[in-house]
Structures are given as structure tokens and as C-alpha cells.
């Protein structure tokens, strides 16, 4: 294990700061055929809801310059199967699991959180209050600071493991929401989820996605994520898992400089399924050339150096 890359966050003792982002890695089965999942820092598994969900009609994806829109709709096999089939499969790997949970009512989140947190390999929860693709729940919990805080508190009461709250960028003031969930007991933040977007087909003159709107991800949203992490990390004292268009080792470093303490790689897994192990190798080399002993040194350096000078 490289000392340069190892980091320790609430619930997540990671060999390196790279994890696949929830929703972009299923439950790991497909990628386990391509490389050893134990090489990852952690795994963000697909959102789990109480009941199984088929999700939205197709088309579910559309492309935009530097990005993609998706409206999958939280398709997943439901709490029972995730706990009895998917999580046990991942137990054969030496990697902490960040389990993403979603729901339409507070009780759903609480019930799923309580049961998923009991799985031996789930070392942290990621509260999904920012999915733009489901009509109820999801994003409606993530746009109001009081609602977000109340849900965080309710989940914290039942969860045996630390809770990260995944924030939506589709808000006027992300700092207020971040501070509200921190106050409510969140152990960390994940940011950002996708930005709401739409594409219209010129032939049919209708939106391409069957769901009409969808979540924009990929390199196109990276500057938005960097800006939001830069702002939030200066105003909260809990760690941030940064995500939003990460594709290269330099992107990882940029997120750390902005204030992230770990990163998640999403859309890039669809372009190159080997991206995570490739990034881990590249990051190690990059830090050597930068003469950085541990990646932790970079956290928030873009703003902490300003204070040092003033």
C-alpha cells in the first residue's frame, strides 16, 4: 500500500482516494471481471431503495459536448436483494463500501439506512438527497436546508456507520445546505450530484430523454463541482468526497486543491471501464513528480494558501 495515496475519512479507510461513484458502477459485478476491486479506495454502490425499482422508460441517456444526460430513475433490485445478494458478493473484496440510499419518504430512508448499515462491509452511507430523475423524494429533500437537515438527523439516529450527504448542485446556495446537514450530524459530504439538463431532438422536435429532463455529468460539469467544493470546504469542517467529471489524475489533484479529501469517478467509467485503476497508478506518479508525500497535503490548498498570505 502506497503511503502517498492512503487516506482516512469517517468510516472509510482507503488505500487510495479513488472510488467509483454511485450509479456508475452498479454493484461492482461487471467491473470485477475486468480488474481486482480490492485495488480501489472504496466503492460507491448504486442507490438502494426499499422496494425494487425499474426506473424510467428509455431513452435514458443523451450526449452533450463533454458530457452526458441520464435519467435512469434509480433502477435497483430493492433493499432485500441488495442486502442478501449484492453486498455479500462484494464481501470477497478488501474494500470499504459507501452505500448510497434513496427514498421517497423519511421512513424509507430510515428503514433502508438502518438495514444497509448493518452489512459487514458497508462502512459508510451516502444519503442521496439529490437525484434529479425521480418525481418524489430524491432532489426534493436536497433543495431545502431544513428538510435536508431533518432527514440527515433521522438517518444518523439509526445508522451504525458514518453518514455522508450527497448534495445537489441545483440550488441557489449550496453552502447553507452543507452547513445545515453538518449541524444535523452528517459525517461528510459528497458533491456534486448531476446538474439538471435537457436535449431536444431536431427530427422529432421533442426531448431526447423519455423522462424529458435528466442529470448532466462528465467533464462539462467539472468547473461547477470545483467551484462548489471550493466554497463549501471553507465553510464546513467535515470532509468532502469530490465528484463531477473527473477523467484524469490532474483532475483528481484539482479537486483536492479545491478542498476535497477523496474523489469519486463517475461517467468516465462508461468511457473507459479501466479508468479507476489507471487513475490510481497515474496519481501516484503525478504526486512523485510534484514531490508530495501524501495527497492529504493538497486538501484545500487553493484557499488555505490565501489565508497564509493575508
Amino acid at each position, binding site marked *: 500500500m502506497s503511503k502517498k495515496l492512503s487516506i482516512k475519512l469517517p468510516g472509510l479507510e482507503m488505500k487510495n482516494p479513488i472510488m467509483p461513484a454511485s450509479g456508475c458502477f452498479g454493484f461492482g459485478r461487471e467491473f470485477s471481471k475486468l480488474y481486482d476491486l480490492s485495488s480501489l479506495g472504496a466503492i460507491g454502490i448504486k442507490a438502494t431503495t426499499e422496494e425494487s425499482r*425499474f426506473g424510467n422508460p428509455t431513452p435514458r*441517456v443523451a450526449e452533450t459536448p463533454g458530457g452526458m444526460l441520464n435519467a435512469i430513475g434509480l433502477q435497483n433490485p430493492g433493499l432485500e436483494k441488495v442486502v442478501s445478494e449484492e453486498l455479500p458478493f462484494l464481501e470477497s473484496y478488501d474494500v470499504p463500501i459507501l452505500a448510497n440510499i434513496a427514498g421517497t419518504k423519511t421512513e424509507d430512508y430510515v428503514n433502508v439506512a438502518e438495514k444497509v448499515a448493518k452489512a459487514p462491509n458497508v462502512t459508510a452511507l451516502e444519503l442521496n438527497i439529490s437525484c434529479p430523475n425521480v418525481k418524489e423524494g430524491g432532489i426534493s429533500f436536497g433543495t431545502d436546508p431544513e428538510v435536508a437537515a431533518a432527514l440527515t438527523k433521522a438517518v444518523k439516529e439509526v445508522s451504525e456507520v458514518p453518514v455522508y450527504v450527497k448534495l445537489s448542485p441545483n440550488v441557489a446556495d449550496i453552502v447553507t445546505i452543507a452547513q445545515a446537514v453538518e449541524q444535523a450530524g452528517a459525517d461528510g459530504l459528497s458533491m456534486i450530484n448531476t446538474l439538471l439538463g435537457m436535449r431536444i431532438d431536431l427530427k422529432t422536435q421533442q426531448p431526447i430523454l423519455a423522462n424529458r429532463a435528466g442529470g448532466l455529468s462528465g467533464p462539462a460539469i467539472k468547473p461547477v463541482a470545483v467551484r462548489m467544493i471550493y466554497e463549501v470546504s471553507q465553510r464546513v469542517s467535515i470532509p468532502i468526497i469530490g465528484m463531477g467529471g473527473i477523467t484524469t489524475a490532474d483532475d483528481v489533484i484539482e479537486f483536492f486543491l479545491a478542498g476535497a479529501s477523496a474523489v469519486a469517478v463517475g461517467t468516465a467509467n*462508461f468511457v473507459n471501464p479501466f479508468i479507476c485503476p489507471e487513475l490510481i497508478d497515474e496519481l501516484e506518479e503525478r504526486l512523485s513528480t510534484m514531490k508530495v508525500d501524501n495527497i492529504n497535503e493538497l486538501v484545500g490548498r487553493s484557499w488555505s494558501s490565501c489565508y497564509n498570505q493575508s
Partner: protein
Amino acid sequence: MRREDTVVTENIEIARNIYQVTFKGEIVSEMTEPGQFLHLRTSDQYMPLLRRPISICDVDIDRQECTMLYRADGEGTKQLSDKRQGDQLDVLGPLGNGFPLDTIKGETALLVGGGIGVPPLYYLSKKLVEKGVNVFHVLGFASAEDTFYKQQFSELGETIITTIDGSLGYQGFVTNYILEEQPPYDILYSCGPTPMLNAIEQQLHPERAYFSFEERMGCGIGACFACVCHVQGDETGTSYKKVCSDGPVFPTGVIQL
């Protein structure tokens, strides 16, 4: 399955907007199953960002060469059509489950293709002929200038071309021809637009048939859930198949058309 930067050896237009690209690489040695597909990056820039799934049309294992046919229709396939001999082509694959060949011996197979769904049937037909299966092709196109691979299929077995405007071969849809002429067959394989597959299932009621499906894909390996289809006879509405990793080939009666 692997990812490899292969080298383009040829890329030519063979019918209106239809291109034939051939590339060389070690990855080709894994392409033994007809009906599988490859996931291509058409640019090393970010537009388009995602790969393009294209079916395998022909494979020369000894020369490590693979041929694909595609329609240059959208941004990705137009970029692909700009590739020249010697250019790099980023290929991921082979992906998905192809046409099963084990169950068939010395019988007659009816291969029914429509438009850009025709290409994977070529490699399938070659493999069937190798096994001593008698092949009969019915290939549908919009018109004569959209037609391709008539000669290549004819060398493997009887080949009927149908065109909607009647400018070549039989005028009408592939199903019109099959209903009218009733060619005998033991097993049916098909790839083409969903309305065509639906017509085959509804009008021909084949007992043994395999269909290859097309759906807009993200990752191509089963992780993103972009290409899911409903399953026939599922009252809960929550059962699904992923076209990329459970398919793209399914026995008839599985996918809700």
C-alpha cells in the same frame, strides 16, 4: 474482453451512407462468437463522450482483422467515417452474448436482416456454413442504393433482397416475402429495427428464433442501466434485461417488443 488501440486498414463507403471499416489488432483473436459487438471511441476528445456500439460483421482470425459496417448518421459515426488507413481506433470488446450455434446441426437456418441490422448476420452465416448448416437469407433495405453485401451473402447461400420501393429484388418488407413464399426453415435468426422483429414474432410465429436487439447504450458492459428492456409476461413490471450484457441476442419471446 479488453480495450485496445487498433489500427484501421480500410474505411470505405459501400452503399448510401453505409461504410465498411476494417481494423487490425490482437483483440480480434477473441472475436469467435457471431452477434457480439464492439464499443468504439470515435474521437479522443470529449464530443461525443461515450463509445459507439457497432456489431461485428466479419472476422479474419489468422490476419487479426475485423470488419464492421455502420451507417454514418450521427456525430460519432460521422467521425468514424473520417478515419483513414493507419489511424488508431480505440476498441473495447468483444461485448455481449452472440447467436448460439451449439443447438443447430445440418438443418436449415433462415437469416432475416433489416437495414443496418444486416451486418452481424454475415459472420453468423459464415459460422453456420462452417458447421454444415444450410443458410437462406432474406435481407430488407429501403431501396437499391441502400443495399449492401448482396454478393457476399449470395456466396454463402440463397439470398433474397427485398426493398420497400421495389428498386431491387422483391418489393415489400422481409415479412411480406416470407409469408408469401414460405421458405422452409428449422431455426430463424434476425437482426433489424424493432418493428421488423415485432412483425416476425407476430406474423411468422417462429418456434425457434433468436433476435438481436438494438438500444441506446452508455457503458456497454451492464453497469449504467441505460439499455434496459421489459420482459414478456412480467406482471410486476420490474423485471428487465440489459441489451448490452444480457443480450444483444435473446431467444424470441423474452423481450417485450
